[in-house]
């Protein structure tokens, strides 16, 4: 419940504070968001399974975002940015989907 409130507050803050992203970082925003989503859903699932760990969550969150952005950056430099971001999206997308599915199973027991 409180984490959901955190998400809401984050969204509202982002909408009203009008934080602008530097132009050079803009291509990495979507990838960073997908990576953050992955870490957050992993964390929620861990909480529900009773094995949540602060250190693991923080490290996975920061590392996910940074590595995803780094891969895309590297791909852009090599000229395969689109393909590499597709790869990142596919891998993280599958993980998000699986994690949400098990959260759903834990919540609804079905």
């Amino acid at each position: 419940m409180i984490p959901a409130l955190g998400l809401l507050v984050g969204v509202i803050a982002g909408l009203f504070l009008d934080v602008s992203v530097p132009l050079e970082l803009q291509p990495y925003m979507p990838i960073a968001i997908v990576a953050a989503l992955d870490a957050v859903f992993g964390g929620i699932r861990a909480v529900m399974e009773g094995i949540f760990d602060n250190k693991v969550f923080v490290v996975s969150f920061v590392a996910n975002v940074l590595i995803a952005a780094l891969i895309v950056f590297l791909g852009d430099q090599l000229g395969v940015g689109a393909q590499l971001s597709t790869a990142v999206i596919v891998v993280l997308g599958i993980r998000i989907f699986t994690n949400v599915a098990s959260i759903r199973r834990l919540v609804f027991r079905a």
Partner: protein
Amino acid sequence: MSLGRRAADMTVAGRNRPETRPRDASMSLLNNLFSQSLEPGYAQAAARRRSTGEQDGGDRTVRSRVSVALVIGMLALGLLLAMAIVQAQGSVGVVSAEREGLIERIRGEEAKTERLQDSLASLRSEISELEDTQLRQTSTGQSLRERLQLLQGAAGTSAVAGPGIAVVLDDAEDIEAAERPDLARVLDVDLQMVANGLWAAGAEAISINGERLTTMSAIRMANNIIHINQQPLKPPYAVWAIGDSRTLPSRFSEGPGGDTLRVAQQQGVRSAVRVEEWLELPAARSQLIYARHAEEAS
């Protein structure tokens, strides 16, 4: 040791019963993704806590700290999401505004071109009128004026009138229903052949939809639209030709123009040839800019 045994097992199994190989062995990447969707670190940390013997109390501190890190993570995620949304919407607005601006500029330039062309035409007619009145004043000028009019009529730079024929071409009524939709339209080749046939049949001046054909006229197709003198035309195409209205129709029909019309008719293109008592053909807008009279230039 166990690894070696497993490897031996696998080779034995592989030799004797190849079907024991897991069916989805080629999908190990996907399987890995699915089975390790939760960070393995969580399970490891939990196992470590259990082994170090943190019991009830440890569990509670973990629970109470759960929210803080997760809430901060959620906050960061929400912030990122909102920023991305704001940015995406902002860029959409910028792009469409840019496009609007470009469209407006194109419209403005088009209107300007039209105005300039109009003023050019009126200035040209003024010049020719002035020329006319000047030449009319002397007897040598009078004969010069007649020669000039004849030459301009032949060159297409002055309006002419006289008897002739009108050849009207139009696309097939239902282009999509035609056998060859690409041939059911009037093509630039058709108009080229008709114009050529009219010249061959003795036409002295030709215009297509009000565009006078001169020695510099090109009949060409661009993006499925026929352009003559760089002006886009719409079907039906009315080809007017001034000439001997008694011989022109038959000579045209026997020549290459008639053949073209008959071939096009088989594809569904509609065409008609009419004898006209009086046709008025406008002057062409073409003007020499670079070419100079050789004697004058040297």
